[in-house]
């Protein structure tokens, strides 16, 4: 049968010993330096890094339980949400509702409205433009 487990008794024993050894954390080596950034972690999980980039990441993941656990959880998440198709935006609300949507987002986060946030930026931009014109 194609999928039959082919481990011999000795390999089964070593599998068990290895399992307990690895699970014990005795193999843990504190990874030097900082953890892998979000950008590289997600790209690694999606398999989009090439060999030259990923070698150092694989090496880090062997030693760093934190980053490895993160990648493992991301794989589980990836599978859990794999069925979902990207949201279609074409048929959704018109851009005229942008302010309304952003207002909801930013009032929730900052206790203010998007109008205030973006108006502030607009003002800064306007001031900069005026400065340039003045020069």
């Amino acid at each position, binding site marked *: 049968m194609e*999928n039959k*487990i*082919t*481990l011999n008794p*000795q*390999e*089964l*024993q070593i*599998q*068990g*010993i*290895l*399992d*307990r*050894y*690895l*699970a*014990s*954390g005795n*193999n*843990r080596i504190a990874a030097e330096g900082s953890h892998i*950034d*979000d*950008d*590289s*972690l*997600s*790209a*690694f*999980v999606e*398999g*989009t*890094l*090439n*060999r*030259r980039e990923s070698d*150092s990441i694989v090496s880090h993941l*062997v030693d760093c339980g934190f980053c490895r*656990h*993160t*990648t493992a*959880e*991301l*794989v*589980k998440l*990836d599978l859990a*949400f794999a069925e*979902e198709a990207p*949201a279609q*935006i074409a048929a959704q609300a018109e*851009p005229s*509702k*942008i302010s309304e*949507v*952003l207002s909801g987002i930013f009032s*929730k*986060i*900052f206790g203010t409205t998007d109008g205030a*946030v*973006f108006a502030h930026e607009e003002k800064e931009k306007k001031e900069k433009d005026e400065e340039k014109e003045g020069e």
Partner: protein
Amino acid sequence: MNDALQRHCDSVVGQMFERCHENAPNFGVTSECFSKSLNSTFAKFAGSSSDELSDKDVTDFLGQIQADDLFMAIACANGNERAWWEFDQQHRSYMERVARHLARTEMDATDIVDAVYEQLYGTRIVDGERVSKFATYSGRGSLRGWLRTVIWHSLVDRHRAGHDEVSLDEMTENVGEGGAHANFAEQPVGGDESMVDQITRERYRTATVTAIQNAFSSLEDHEKLILLYYHVENLKLREISRLVESEDSPLRAWFQRKSATREKNPAGRIHESTVMRWLEKCYAKVLQSFRTQLVSESGLSEAEVAICTQLATQDLAGGSFFNNLNVSRSAAEVSN
């Protein structure tokens, strides 16, 4: 990078910008801003190896960039309203579902998404400029994959804030589906005392632990990682196969580097049974190295090696039940 390669890079980036701008003309992203982001990512890539890069390397690398996602991220980092609106339409509900999946309560999930939005917009000002988390997205993976990672780390930070005394490792094992394993503790010895006296047992124990440590250390990093995913992170075969699903996955390429199957069908799906075979190869290598260590380094006979293995199995796993458990797990997964 030499001038000719830089010109080629600029040309490809220029074409990418045109396509993205055509798809999202209202995002207000300038060609300079887009090029700056990609040049920074490319410099990181080019710096990861001393090998000379060709035009093809540049084209291949830039071809893998999720350009439209990057374009949106740059626009959002710049505070473009239209981009924020589209981002919210496309990704908010997904982010909420991911947060709900990870968080314990609905309120936690909502708080996490709000906190992530705050990070994405950026409330910190450095040198007069708002620092948006979007600026750290390079387009190497999908925006959704990156968002998942940001949400995950936000959850970890949140958990850490409430558990100061817990180590990072302990804490991450409690977030998501990670579960703790039992310790590598010495089990009380049963009725086999008559077989091997305590001193001999201790000698065998030391030799065995050293041998398994060295055997694992002798593996290549890719082999170690797949074993760690399976035994420590408890990833199922299906989940590991997902990790190597991409045709370009370096882990997959490493395991298939001498495979005729890869040459015949490089884009073929990696089945659970394939991952199981990779694991089996790792076990065989560990076993070989383990035995060599015990015989060559510790000077044990074949009979003593067998005793060591048996003792380790008893001590570490509490008897033969453990092996049966492992076989059941693997067999059940493969048969699914």
